């Protein structure tokens, strides 16, 4: 699965499992949070990513975080 801030481009080039990242220069970062909160936030994002990996798709699909 792909985490990107340009899901429309990812769809256009034919990636199948797409999830929006936070910012294009730090897709799984959230520097406004405290370090501990940021790790918790990131674990949630990656947990969602694991669900995406287990989801059947038939066409390029953009999933929510």
């Amino acid at each position, binding site marked *: 699965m*792909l985490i990107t801030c340009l899901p429309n481009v990812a769809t*256009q080039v034919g990636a199948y499992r797409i999830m929006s990242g936070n910012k294009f220069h730090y897709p799984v970062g959230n520097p406004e949070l405290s370090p501990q909160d940021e790790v918790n936030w990131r674990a949630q994002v990656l947990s969602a990513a694991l669900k995406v990996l287990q989801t059947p798709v038939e066409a390029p699909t953009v999933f929510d975080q």
Partner: protein
Amino acid sequence: MAKVLHYLNQFFAGIGGEDKAGQEFLFLPKPVGPGVLLRDLLKDRQKEYATVVCGDNYFHENEETVLASLAEVIVQFQPDLFIAGPAFHAGRYGIACAKAASFVHERWDVPAVTGLFEENPGTREIGRHVLVIQTGSSAASMQSTIKRFADLAVLLLNNNQEGLEAFKEEFCLKIPRRFTVQAAAPDSVRALDMLLAKLRGGAFESEIPRIQAAPHPIPAALQDISRATLALVTEGGLVPMGNPDRLESSRGTKYFKYSIEKRDDLKSGEFEAMHTGYDTSTVNADPDRLIPVDAMRRLEREGNFARLHNYYYVTTGTGAMPAKMQELGGGIAQELSACGVNGVVLTAT
């Protein structure tokens, strides 16, 4: 019936080798060297075949003079087709062929063809719409190359667009370059014209070619993630500090893998991002923001999946050629698959 003009260097014109590389520009009203074979293959079609010859050194030392002489020949001879080479892997000759063909095509809109090996430096000098037949690296492939020149010449002289597209696809080098052209109106006007056409539902053509991605099989969903090995991959250019393998910061042509074994997170100062496509400072301050080892370790410990692969894979995606990225992606996928990795989280900047 048509006129063909053929550019050759001193060697293929039969004048001599390196000792004759200073040969001045020369017009011959007949086919010479490989041109004889090409003329024979085209004998039903063309009525005049002439040759221009120039020594490899002479061309580079007197480029302006040579092109001026070539211009005179074009004006007088008025060719319907310009052929240069083939130059195979010969560098000076390849550059001369590319420059001569590009000059003739750009100035007079005469179809121009050359033949180069893919690594010939001449490929970097090819102008817009000049056709480059892919050749082998040496003149051993002369016969088959000239046969292709003849096939292409027939398509061009007959203006067979459909055949031309098929030929280009199969036998011509793709020249991955952008060209500077003079447009009829400023970009703001062209962009608004396109937008208005789009809003009206009219026809418009983007100036940026759309990437035609070849469809690929849909990766199956993970069945039993509790037994899965997962890997992290990025195009964001994250490498160990100092970039030991010299990953390019743009137009990447390589990928690397770096160990994250026994690491619970990626520390600032140990890794850095090589990438001219984004502001890397936030990732450099905490590389987990690109390769999320800390979060994946936590999920691994909590049993959300079996194991995080010992290496992450990286390339640089900015300014990259889609074909090259496809090749790199294929290589990464093959390596991961061979290691028993079941799923990948790929972060893109």
